C-alpha cells in the first residue's frame, strides 16, 4: 500500500524525509496532490508501506506532520483516505 504524508512546513517535511530514509522506507518528495489539502508544497509519498508501522515510526521519532493518507487505487483513480 502507498501512503502520503502532509506537513505544516517545509522544515518538517525535509526533517521527516531524512528520518524516513534512515528507517528504510521507500520515499519520494512529490507536489501535494490536488485532492488533499496541504499546508506546504511538499508531500512525502511512501511506497509499499504499512499504515501502522509508518505511524509508529513517525510518532517514535517525534516527527511533526499534518496528516497521513492511505492511497486506494480503483480503476486507475486514486483516492486518499485519512488515517487517524
Amino acid at each position, binding site marked *: 500500500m502507498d501512503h502520503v504524508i502532509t506537513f*505544516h*512546513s*517545509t*522544515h518538517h517535511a*525535509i*526533517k521527516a524525509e531524512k528520518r524516513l530514509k534512515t528507517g528504510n522506507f521507500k520515499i519520494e*518528495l512529490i*507536489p501535494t496532490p490536488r485532492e488533499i489539502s496541504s499546508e*506546504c508544497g511538499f508531500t512525502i509519498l511512501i511506497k509499499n508501506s504499512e499504515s501502522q508501522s509508518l505511524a509508529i515510526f513517525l510518532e517514535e521519532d517525534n516527527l511533526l506532520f499534518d496528516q497521513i493518507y492511505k492511497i486506494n487505487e480503483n480503476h486507475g483513480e486514486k483516492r486518499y483516505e485519512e488515517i487517524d
Partner: protein
Amino acid sequence: MIYLDNAATSFPKAPGVPEAVYDFLKNIGANSGRSSHSLARKASSIVFETREKLGQLFNVRDETRIIFTSNATEALNTTIMGLVKEGESVITSSMEHNSVIRPLRVLESANDVKLWKIKSDKFGNPDLKDFDQLLKKKPNHLIFTACSNVTGTIFPFEEMAEKAKKIGANVILDASQIAGFIPIDFEKSAFDVICFPGHKSLLGPTGTGVFILKEGVDFTPLKFGGTGSRSHLEHQPEFLPDKFESGTLNIAGIAGLNKALEFIEETGMDNIRFQKGNLTNQLIYGLQQFPDLEIFSPIDSKIQAGVISIVPHNMKLSQFTYELDRKEIAVRMGLQCAPLAHQTIGTFNYGGTIRITPGCFNSKEEIEITLELIADIMKK
C-alpha cells in the same frame, strides 16, 4: 589591504563561503519552501541544514524556533516591537547600539514605554549594583547587548539574564558581537530571545541574521506575506518558522552561512577566541606604548571581544583615519552607530573613536605592520 574592521562585518569570510554563495546562484538558484521540483528541494535543504547547524551550535531543541532575518537589526526590531507592549517598562544598558536603542525610543514616545538604563563605567562595564536597584522596579523586560560594539566590553550577560528572569522579566539579548565567538547554550540560558547577524563572528555573508525564541515565547511578526504554506488562507500561519519568515529568504547568503557554520564547528569557538585574543593582546600592548593615544576599551582579555577603540590626542580622528586609509589599513572611525555608548565612555564630543577590530584570519605580522604605521602617523 590589512582589514581590521571585523566588528562591522568580518572579512575574509570562512573558507568556502564565497564558493557556496556562487554555487547556489550558479547551479541551484531556486526558491525554498515553495515548489517541489528538484532545484527547489535543494534550496529548501540548504535552509533546513543551516537551521539544523545553528541548532547544534547554540543548543536549540526545536530548530523551527530559529528564524532567519536579513540582519541582526531586523531580528532585534521584530522581537522588540513584538514583545514590548504599551505602558511596559524596559531595562537596557548604557552601551547599546542604535539597533536596540532606536526601536526602544520609538516605543517610549509612541507607546508610553518606560526606559531605564544601567549605568556603566568608562570602559563600558555595566554597574551591577545599579542593575540590582533597577530590577527592584520590576521591569517587564531586560533588553541588552552581550558585548559593546564600541569598546568590546563583554557583559556578564548570562548572570544578568538569570537575575532578570528571577523577577519575571523577559530577556532579549543582542548577541551581535559574540555569536560565533563565545558559546551560548540557549536551552540552559535565561534568554527568551537571542538576536545576532550571520556576517560578523559567524563568518558568513552579509544579509543574514537570526533570532531564536524560547518555547512559549510568542508575539506578532513585523512582516506578513507569502510563506509557501497555508496558501489557501489569507491569514498568516501561526506555526514556526513560517510565522516570521514571510517573503523569499536570502538563500544565497544562507548557503554561505551554512559553510561558515561548518568551519566554526570544525575549528571550535575556543580556538577562534584564542586566536583573536592573541592578536587583540598584541594590538593593545602595542597601542599602550603611544603616550598620545588613549585606549577606551578594557584590556583584560576575559572581558574583551577584540574591539579596540582609541583616540589620538595630538591630531584629529579624521586625519589619523585618512593616514591609515592611505596605507591600506581598514579601520572604522566615528560613532559606530552607537552614540549612547560614546556618551557613556566620554568620546561623543571627539566625534567618536577609531575602532580597530582584528578577526581570526589576521596575522601577527599584520598587527605589527599596523602598529609601525601608527607609530609613523603619531610622529607627524
